[in-house]
């Protein structure tokens, strides 16, 4: 496991993130235009969805698909309660702030998922193609739980109409991920070969550029708002991934997923959203401090998962689910 961690640390992917953080902390003006950052994220979603679908098309679908989707949604629905309880224990945050953070941690970070897939592939660990769909299924339920917590505990929270729900369920990243998953499924191996020049060849390099940008954003966030990250909050940001990963390990093992699948289930549960949920929280819980949840998700938990978490989860999954 230690050698895996070292290898992870020396992967261009991780180093690119580190470079971004360092540049931002040193106050370099290195930055990506907003349009480029968005373009990179559209690319990653399209590619990862497509490859997931194509992999299903060639490996056949698995009886576990439905059960895994359900398990993912359930994890997303329940983890916010755990996160909320932990936050109330460890910190003095308001109900609204704690609930907002809990929503982030119940949901998932697709780029952590992408990085994990890539690092697993680099060690020849394959996973079920439909884990991409599971990722999509885990994005939204956590929001529901967080709003329910707020509704019960405080008078905050804006009451989310059907309109807001449609918006969350049809948010761009979910639609693109699932849409390209379906396209990959329909066109299969042949479709993959047709567009491998885009979705496979430059994939890892583009992931590096994306992580470089994420590093810059994370570093700038830490520099500007690092002070909101009190020790209790940071402790949560390091501990909650382990709690989530344990839940994911249990679920993945019970479902009988492959080692790679279990690892990804752990990664999803351990990761915290930094695109979809932040926007939803601005709409639904405007009183929550965005610097707090974003700083935590992007500045603490994301690097933790990227650098230490993924090798750790793989080791645990290998131990429990058996060698590959």
């Amino acid at each position, binding site marked *: 496991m230690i050698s895996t961690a070292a290898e992870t640390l020396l992967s261009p992917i991780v180093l690119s993130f580190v470079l971004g953080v360092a540049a931002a902390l040193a106050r370099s003006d290195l930055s990506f235009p907003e349009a480029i950052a968005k373009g990179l994220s559209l690319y990653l979603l399209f590619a990862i969805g497509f490859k997931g679908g194509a992999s299903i098309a060639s490996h056949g679908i698995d009886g576990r698909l439905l059960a895994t989707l359900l398990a993912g949604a359930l994890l997303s629905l329940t983890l916010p309660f755990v996160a909320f309880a932990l936050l109330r224990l460890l910190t003095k945050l308001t109900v609204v702030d704690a609930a907002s953070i809990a929503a982030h941690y119940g949901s998932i970070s697709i780029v952590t998922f992408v990085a994990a897939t890539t690092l697993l592939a680099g060690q020849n660990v394959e996973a079920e193609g439909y884990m991409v769909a599971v990722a999509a299924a885990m994005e939204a339920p956590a929001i529901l739980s967080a709003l329910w917590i707020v509704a019960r505990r405080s008078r905050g929270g804006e009451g989310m109409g059907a309109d807001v729900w449609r918006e969350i369920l049809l948010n761009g990243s979910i639609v693109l991920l699932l849409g390209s998953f379906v396209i990959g499924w329909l066109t299969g191996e042949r479709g993959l070969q047709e567009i491998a020049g885009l979705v496979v060849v430059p994939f890892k390099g583009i992931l590096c550029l994306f992580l470089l940008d994420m590093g*810059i*954003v994370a570093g700038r966030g830490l520099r*500007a708002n690092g002070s909101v990250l009190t020790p209790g909050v940071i402790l949560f940001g390091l501990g909650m991934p382990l709690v989530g990963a344990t839940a994911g390990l249990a679920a993945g093992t019970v479902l009988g997923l492959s080692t790679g699948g279990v690892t990804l289930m752990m990664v999803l549960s351990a990761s915290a959203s930094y695109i979809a949920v932040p926007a939803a929280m601005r709409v639904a819980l405007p009183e929550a401090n965005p610097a707090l949840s974003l700083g935590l998700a992007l500045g603490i938990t994301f690097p933790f998962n990227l650098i230490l978490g993924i090798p750790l989860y793989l080791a645990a999954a290998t131990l429990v689910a058996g060698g590959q």
Partner: protein
Amino acid sequence: METHPAKRVEIIIEAVMERRLTQTLSDAGVTGYTVLPVTGGSGRSGYWNREGQIGRASGMVAVICLIRPEKLDALLEAAFAVVDRHIGVVNITDAQILRAERF
């Protein structure tokens, strides 16, 4: 050239609220508005800028509405309902417009 008095209302609001704001304005009978991008800013909640961001959570937009003076109150009520709990500032200036029949 003939010009007509009007009010120029400029609402700087979170990007996630853009659609809600414009919807509310339309419902209040505001027939026209223009949305300008905003790249950064600072206020009580600190400094932000859009570089390298991919989500809409941290950006803002500026919405400009030119309206007949008598419609100002309706517009402000509508805008306030949306801005109220959210980050944002509203300013109004006296203006003259061409082609008043359009407003």
